[in-house]
């Protein structure tokens, strides 16, 4: 069911309304989220002061929650830019109310994900050693190291995502500047770059967005492939796999879509945007989510089947630990929330609704976090040298930082939605149904 035609002035009023005023509930929510985020910063400060030993990472598991969170947040970042770019390139008209909300998720998730390599550094104050600059020791970064691949990939993706988010915001902030006062006026004017709505500007914007969509698509795929290669380049059990890159890309889009559905439902409810984010949009996103769930299952099955059929002892150790050993509760929970529940809730048409899509998405986020945990921890716990096996349990510092990132993400999103229309006003032109 397509949304009814809404007059332009009402579109603008409805989408600008959330920007005006700050409710008590908003202040309380933001304060709570900021407090949790601050707690995470304190935990990180404690780790910097005391040393990385306060985290639960021990030999042989040197990649614990921090790397799980890193991969998870980089995955979530695929919500926006990738989905938005695909929908833009395919001229999917229903994308219009969805894209900005999605692109904002990308920008914030990348900022958070990009912090984990720093959090994971033992001596974070030396992070600038990763930059290629002439120094007295005549040392340059090793560009062949996957760590440098990550630095360049994430920097490029973050730059591209911020620009991809910013460019289509220019017409909206130019309009906002005409009605704003005080610091908001200065902010919007600065961001509008003197936009006047001329045909030259529109043409340039449309061309730039088309090109950016193509470029960002290629970058987004490469970023999660690079994250996958961080693992696949090591000859570790169940990591050294040729399908790891596409497996990670599929997982990233899957978790990104789930994050997007949750964010859109919260926006819809709290900002009263029921006329703009309709069951039609959620229906389409739910179908995409179902497709990604099936693809995820296919990749997971293919990955595990080849290991089982190969029957290589070291790989079978990790395989066994996942399927029926000490990691099996996490494994089967992951399968249930990533496939069984979405398949029932979204696959049966009668059950598919905004609420069930959101429930499935919450489960998928949990499942995808567990998937990253199951990729990292079992392999490191059970290395090729059996005598070097070990166990991992996260410390309060890692748990605090993990929880804080979720709070930081929500806080950033709340602040963004108070500053800018979360649905692109100029793109949401009132359509006649036949034009749609």
């Amino acid at each position: 069911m397509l949304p009814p035609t809404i007059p332009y002035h009402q579109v603008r009023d409805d989408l600008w309304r959330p920007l005006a005023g700050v409710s008590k509930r908003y202040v309380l929510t933001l304060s709570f989220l900021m407090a949790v985020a601050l707690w995470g910063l304190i935990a990180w400060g404690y780790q910097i002061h005391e040393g990385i030993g306060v985290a639960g990472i021990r030999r042989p598991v040197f990649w614990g929650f921090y790397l799980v969170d890193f991969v998870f947040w980089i995955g979530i970042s695929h919500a926006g830019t990738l989905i938005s770019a695909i929908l833009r390139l395919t001229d999917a008209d229903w994308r219009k109310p969805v894209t900005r909300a999605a692109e904002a998720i990308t920008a914030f998730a990348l900022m958070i994900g990009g912090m984990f390599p720093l959090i994971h550094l033992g001596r974070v104050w030396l992070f600038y050693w990763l930059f290629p600059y002439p120094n007295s020791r005549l040392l340059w970064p090793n560009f062949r190291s996957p760590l440098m691949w990550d630095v360049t990939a994430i920097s490029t993706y973050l730059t591209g995502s911020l620009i991809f988010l910013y460019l289509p915001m220019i017409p909206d902030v130019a309009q906002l500047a005409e009605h704003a006062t005080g610091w908001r006026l200065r902010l919007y004017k600065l961001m509008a770059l003197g936009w006047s709505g001329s045909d030259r500007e529109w043409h340039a914007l449309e061309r730039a967005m088309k090109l950016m969509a193509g470029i960002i698509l290629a970058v987004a795929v490469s970023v999660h492939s690079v994250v996958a290669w961080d693992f696949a380049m090591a000859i570790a059990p169940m990591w050294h796999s040729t399908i790891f890159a596409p497996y990670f890309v599929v997982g990233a889009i899957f978790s990104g879509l789930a994050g997007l559905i949750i964010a859109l439902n919260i926006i819809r409810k709290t900002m009263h945007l029921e006329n703009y984010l309709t069951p039609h949009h959620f229906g389409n996103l739910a179908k995409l989510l179902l497709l990604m769930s099936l693809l995820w299952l296919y990749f997971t099955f293919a990955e595990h089947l080849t290991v089982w059929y190969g029957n290589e002892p070291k790989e079978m150790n990790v395989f066994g630990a996942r399927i029926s050993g000490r990691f099996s509760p996490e494994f089967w929970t992951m399968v249930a929330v990533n496939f069984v529940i979405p398949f029932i809730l979204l696959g049966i048409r009668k059950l598919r609704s905004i609420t069930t899509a959101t429930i499935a998405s919450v489960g998928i986020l949990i499942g995808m976090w567990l998937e990253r945990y199951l990729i990292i921890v079992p392999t490191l716990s059970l290395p090729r040298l059996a005598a070097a096996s070990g166990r991992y349990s996260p410390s309060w510092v890692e748990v605090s930082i993990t929880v804080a990132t979720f709070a930081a993400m929500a806080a950033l999103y709340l602040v963004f939605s108070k500053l800018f229309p979360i649905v692109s006003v100029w793109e949401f032109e009132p359509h006649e149904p036949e034009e749609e």
Partner: protein
Amino acid sequence: MSLYLSGSFADKKDAAQAIKQLKTNGYGPDDLTVFSDEPVEFPRGVLDRPSHMSLAVVSGAVLFFLAVVGFVYYTQQDYRLVTGGMPIFSFWPTGVVFYEITMLGAILTTTGWFIWESGLLRRDKSIPVPSIEPEIICLRVRCNPDQFAAAQDLLQKAGAKSVAKLEKKAA
């Protein structure tokens, strides 16, 4: 001295008609600017704005690619590592870095070219800009004083809801 007048159109077809007639009367694309609060697509040939953005983006990407290959080659050669005569520069393991920086070049060039081509930061602020109303297309015409009346008449005949003279702002 140039004068500016603006015609407001509720219908895109009327605006296209006005542009065609103005072009027949000797006005060039630089004399005509359309303002709107959403993109307006005219049929090909009405008010085309040729663009070199794609070419610029490819050039930017190639430039960044060459720069990063050169930089990585230089730094790897400069790294005083004893390799026993083995080559220290290898193309494939650094391929990801080359790829990402090439794409960064494409992204930055797109942004730069967008700002250049749209004329955002180099607009002459003394040239008046009509205020845009929702769902209205404004056609701004630059003309000589002796052409003013004829242009005004042409806009009205083409179906403009209103035609107004735009005053130049102090630069």
